[in-house]
């Protein structure tokens, strides 16, 4: 080895292999596509965040005085549509998954690189339609598009928004298809299923949901658009349709979609916990199979969104029982992550802070899910702020924490630069504190009976709402910080080196940033994942 290490600038890697906008917009390199996704979803994240800020500002006072009712309804609808379909669903899979799946299994690229690029273009096209719907005046149906309101009554740009989601859905399907084929067919020699990092198991499970669920939402929303445009009755009772059918079809996808959002986060946390505690994962096969179990069970529980819709009581009981089942694999994961910390060498690096935050907040989010699976309690808290708090604990406390933790953890690999550690720790703490202050009061609000999607509310709810808004402003600061210092680090961050965390995993064995085909020499695998040392049998 020469004494003079090649630097970011002197060595060729995927970022400087070619230049010019064409080399990016026509790239088939999964790492570049990942960065394209990263930039796109960051835009959507801050857009969705801006809507959230306006919602929280409006809710400072009980009277609906800041915005008009119609504007407020558009704000929460656009917040939901953008955050769900254009940030959370693609967040971890399309950025970190795209970047890491081929590298972690020792492949040069995904199985279908062109499809991968196409999926980004579909995503952007879908995004353009949704942005168009915003510019044209917004949508006020809520992200759930319940009929017959969405199909016959709303006079906003429902069709444009649906078109956007429809197109983005195909992007999701293509990503899922690509992951499934890649994980099955592209693994390096010696990379058996039980040597795969748990990140891969989680993404495999996610891909299964994407592939099997997404077509249903696509066709369902298309039917709503058709009903609107054509004026024919599919879901509209005035024309002989059945609005509950829409809910069944919608939630057949949209409940599993929750797991599209959280499963990749679980995969990220498995990596973060092991890396930053220098430990093997505790109970590898249980964590791995719980991902698959979650993916399968996720399709059996959609009816718990319809406990008060008047579906049959039998269906209520059936879906309630099945919903409780999800708690089991989720709990298994939480316990195994916690046990992994035991006797580790735990660093307080920013990714680890995010991971620990994730485990705790996901636990709370999951446990409050039990309230919603229990029909008797759900009847009271359904469509109240309790539900809002619950799913934000999963989506924000879970997915976004994992996403930020993952971005920090793999930032050196993505860019070849280290982020500023102190700032990152500060930001992680701010996010955690701000998050809890924002959403914990909403549990209480919900049980008190404050319905969601309310522009104006009863006066006794104000104190808790003010707390929530205060927390939201702290949270906003916590999100802006990484945005600033990560961009700063692109230029000023110290060079990271191949493996700054001394982590296991194939992605850390290649250079940072990696060469275009990921590895200079194709790897062969001869050991299990997370081999941080052999277990001592005495314990």
């Amino acid at each position, binding site marked *: 080895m020469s004494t003079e290490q090649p630097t970011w600038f002197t060595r060729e890697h995927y970022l400087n292999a070619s230049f010019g906008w064409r080399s990016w917009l026509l790239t088939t390199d999964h790492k570049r596509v990942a960065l394209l996704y990263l930039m796109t979803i960051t835009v959507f994240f801050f857009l969705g965040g801006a809507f959230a800020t306006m919602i929280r500002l409006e809710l400072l006072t009980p009277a609906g005085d800041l915005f008009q009712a119609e504007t407020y309804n558009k704000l929460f609808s656009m917040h939901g549509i953008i955050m769900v379909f254009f940030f959370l669903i693609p967040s971890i899979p399309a950025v970190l998954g795209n970047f890491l799946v081929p590298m972690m299994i020792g492949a040069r690229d995904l199985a279908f690189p062109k499809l991968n690029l196409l999926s980004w273009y579909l995503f952007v096209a879908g995004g353009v339609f949704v942005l168009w719907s915003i510019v044209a005046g917004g949508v006020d149906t809520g992200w759930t598009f319940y009929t017959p309101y969405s199909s016959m009554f709303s006079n906003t740009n429902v069709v444009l928004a649906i078109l956007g989601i429809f197109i983005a859905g195909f992007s999701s399907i293509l990503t899922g298809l690509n992951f499934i084929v890649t994980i099955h067919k592209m693994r390096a020699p010696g990379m058996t299923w039980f040597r795969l990092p748990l990140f891969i198991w989680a993404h495999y499970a996610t891909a299964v949901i994407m592939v*099997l669920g997404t077509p249903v939402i696509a066709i369902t929303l298309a039917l709503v658009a058709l009903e609107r445009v054509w004026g024919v009755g599919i879901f509209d009772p005035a024309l002989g349709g059945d609005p509950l059918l829409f809910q069944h079809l919608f939630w*057949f996808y949209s409940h599993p979609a929750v797991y599209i959002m959280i499963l990749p986060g679980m995969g990220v946390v498995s990596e973060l916990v092991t890396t930053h505690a220098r430990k093997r994962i505790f109970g590898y096969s249980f964590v791995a199979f719980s991902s698959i179990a979650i993916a399968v069970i996720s399709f*059996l529980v*959609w009816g718990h969104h319809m406990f008060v819709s008047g579906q*049959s*009581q039998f*269906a209520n009981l059936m*879906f309630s029982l099945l919903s409780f089942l999800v708690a089991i694999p989720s709990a298994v994961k939480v316990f195994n992550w916690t046990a992994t910390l035991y006797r580790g060498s735990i660093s307080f690096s920013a990714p680890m802070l995010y991971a620990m935050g994730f485990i705790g907040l996901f636990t709370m989010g999951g446990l409050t899910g039990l309230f919603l699976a229990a029909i008797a309690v759900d009847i009271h808290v359904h469509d109240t702020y309790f539900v809002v708090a619950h799913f934000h604990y999963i989506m924000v406390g879970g997915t976004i924490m994992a996403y930020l933790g993952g971005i920090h953890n793999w930032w050196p690999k993505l860019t070849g630069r280290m982020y500023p550690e102190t700032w990152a720790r500060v930001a992680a703490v701010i996010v955690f504190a701000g998050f809890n202050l924002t959403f914990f009061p909403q549990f209480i609000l919900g049980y008190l009976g404050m319905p969601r999607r309310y522009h104006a509310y009863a006066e006794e709810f104000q104190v808790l709402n003010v707390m929530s808004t205060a927390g939201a402003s702290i949270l906003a600061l916590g999100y802006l910080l990484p945005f600033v210092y990560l961009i700063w680090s692109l230029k000023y961050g110290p060079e990271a080196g191949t493996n700054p965390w001394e982590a296991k995993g194939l992605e850390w064995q290649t250079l940072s940033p990696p060469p275009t085909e990921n590895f200079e020499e194709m790897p062969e695998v001869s050991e299990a994942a997370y081999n941080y040392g052999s277990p001592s049998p005495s314990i």
Partner: protein
Amino acid sequence: MRIYVLVWVLLLLLLGITVSAAYIPLGKLNPVLAVGIAATKAALIAAYFMHLRSTARLIWIVATAGVVWLAIMFTLTAGDYFMRGYLPKPTVWQQR
């Protein structure tokens, strides 16, 4: 080649059966028969024309997954529509 022709003849035969069976009043059996024959035809096409019979087990699993998920969707939805008003009135609660 020959097996393809055989399957094709079978398919046309089944088509004939399903069309004629549709005109025999069998009550609730009519739709069951129609869907059953359709499933048989689909299985024949998948097994022979699409080579599912001789392909890797993984492919077989993927193909089955689609059908299983469809079954999930239909069964659980039926759990609502078929069971409306199913629960009898338990008398225990009357005393509460």
